[in-house]
């Protein structure tokens, strides 16, 4: 991995962590409403994946989307402003935590109906196929989404029509509070791709370098073969499913065990070990992420609420 790329990935992971930690505080302070699902613990997944895309490749994900938005190049300012429901947010404050997007960054949204965005991802890829280009659509979803009909209809269509979709299951071990083995007929989600004759693989999602390498290989396969691919990324969310999660379904020892494998810590040690970065360089990136986050909070707090004219705007095309 090139040094510049590695440092950028490290920075993005730390930025996601800091932005979400501040988001959680603001949520507790009552400044953020609705649901908020934190990505903390899973940062290596979207960071490694999105590092492997070209700008023309599309990204679409589920409601745990703050990290994906940041990785796609949406600014911390816009992410924070959306969390606070401000007009300067990614969706003018009308989408909230679960609905961040930026078409110019090729980020096609966080989508909050479990599995609902998978057929839409097929459609993004269909649009590209119809246009005759070889863009890839990266579609991320949780393990829970693989038990619903949408998943199966979308996978089947993508294989039947040769759509360039990289299906990425972020297996964080729980669909809300229900463990994978209590909800899925197979423990390894990647096995579900077998039923559709679809190439698939599994990767350790706590190691961003491994995710990046697996994503590069998968992207290349999808682009060159005009075939979909399912990548199962094993990961773990350190926080609850959403902010109001009592976490009765998992033991603290289990959470602790995974937290010892913090993806940021793993990558930091790796960068030092491989002499890709010095402590001072990484500390500087930590400080930059901290200051970027602080600025984003100030930006969001100072931003105006959407005006009443926004209430009736964008229901239909003008």
């Amino acid at each position, binding site marked *: 991995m090139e040094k510049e790329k590695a440092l950028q990935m490290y920075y993005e992971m730390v930025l996601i962590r800091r932005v979400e930690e501040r988001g959680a505080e603001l949520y507790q302070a009552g400044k953020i409403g609705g649901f908020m699902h934190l990505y903390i613990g899973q940062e290596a997944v979207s960071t490694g994946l999105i590092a492997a895309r070209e700008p023309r490749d599309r990204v679409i994900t589920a409601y745990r989307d703050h990290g994906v938005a940041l990785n796609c190049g949406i600014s911390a300012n816009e992410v924070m402003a959306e969390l606070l429901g401000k007009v300067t947010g990614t969706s003018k404050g009308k989408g909230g935590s679960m609905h961040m997007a930026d078409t110019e960054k090729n980020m096609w949204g966080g989508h909050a109906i479990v599995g*609902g965005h998978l057929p839409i991802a097929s*459609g993004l890829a269909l649009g590209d196929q119809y246009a005759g280009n070889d863009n890839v659509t990266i579609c991320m979803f949780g393990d829970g989404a693989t038990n619903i009909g949408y998943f199966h209809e979308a996978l089947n*269509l993508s294989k039947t029509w040769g759509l360039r979709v990289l299906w990425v299951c972020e297996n964080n071990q729980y669909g809300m509070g229900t463990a994978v083995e209590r909800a899925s007929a197979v423990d390894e989600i990647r096995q579900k791709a077998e039923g559709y004759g679809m190439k698939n693989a599994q990767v350790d999602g706590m190691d961003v370098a491994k995710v990046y390498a697996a994503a590069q290989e998968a992207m290349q396969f999808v682009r060159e073969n005009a075939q979909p691919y399912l990548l199962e990324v094993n990961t773990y969310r350190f926080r609850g499913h959403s902010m109001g999660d009592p976490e009765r379904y998992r033991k603290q020892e289990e959470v602790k065990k995974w937290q010892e494998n913090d993806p940021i810590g793993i990558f930091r040690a790796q960068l030092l070990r491989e002499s890709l970065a010095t402590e001072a360089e990484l500390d500087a990136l930590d400080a930059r992420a901290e200051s970027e986050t602080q600025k984003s909070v100030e930006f969001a707090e100072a931003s105006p609420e959407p005006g009443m004219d926004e209430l009736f705007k964008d229901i239909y095309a003008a």
Partner: protein
Amino acid sequence: MARITMREAISQALMEEMDRDPAVFILGEEVGVWGGTYAVTKGFYDKYGAERVKDTPIAENAILGAAIGAAMVGQRPIAELMTINFAFSAMDYIVNQAPKLRYMFGGQFSVPMVIRAVGGGGRQLGATHSQTPDSVFAHFPGLVVVSPGTPADAKGLLKSAIRSNDPVLFIEHATMYQVRGEVPEGEYLVPLGKSTVQRPGKDVTIVTYCKGLELSLKAADDLAKQGIEAEIVDLRTLRPLDMEPVLESFRKTNRAVVVEEGWKSYGVGAEVVSRMYEEAFDYADAPIVRVAQKEVPLPYNRTLEQAALPQIPDIVAAVKEVMK
């Protein structure tokens, strides 16, 4: 002007728009090789090929999800649902995704797609294949719901729907494909969201659309023989709903009947009558009467099915009731 069937009018609109704009393509169950379950896309597969006339698996979520996604990135898909009854299998896309994407993402997304769906009873298909659930879909802001009652409107509205940058649910009626009417050749557009007077009259207003229009026109002929001149206002688009021609007619006649094929409860008539009372209560010389489907799942047996569906004599009787 040629006198053609509803089927030909719809087919013409599709073909003209596909010829005009390469971004327009069709996808759905049996739209290609088979030629369309109701033969609307007969010959399309040979003319445009598999790329533009896409046969899909029997998977409504995949069909509509794919259409939405392709529309978001700039194509203009026309997704065909074999019947509107199958819309329930993919309800999320029709009411929860397509109409919300523009608004929820602050105006970033556009979903220029048409969902063509065949609805209506009267073909002895049993309860799950015979519904007229139009009002369900018209409930949701962000969706445009169109249901034409004449071949000319079918052509003009469908062409406008395909060019619209909003998701449009275009509801056809299974028993009306052979209805004939004058249809302008070539470029002919009817604006979405505009009701119109289909038959002028001075004594009573009949508000209706789609199959109800066919029945109401015949009822109006009967009534004319009895000296009653009914004015028929055709809604054509259920959302956004254009009440102006309805109110204008009602302010003139002071008596009204609303005819729809769907169930009366929470139906199109419920909405239209409420708005008439809200906007023009003082003009009413008699309580407005609704003609609608009996509140039963449609039975297979022909006699029972016809007894449940609104009929011409029901409209005539309703008009006489408001004329008392």
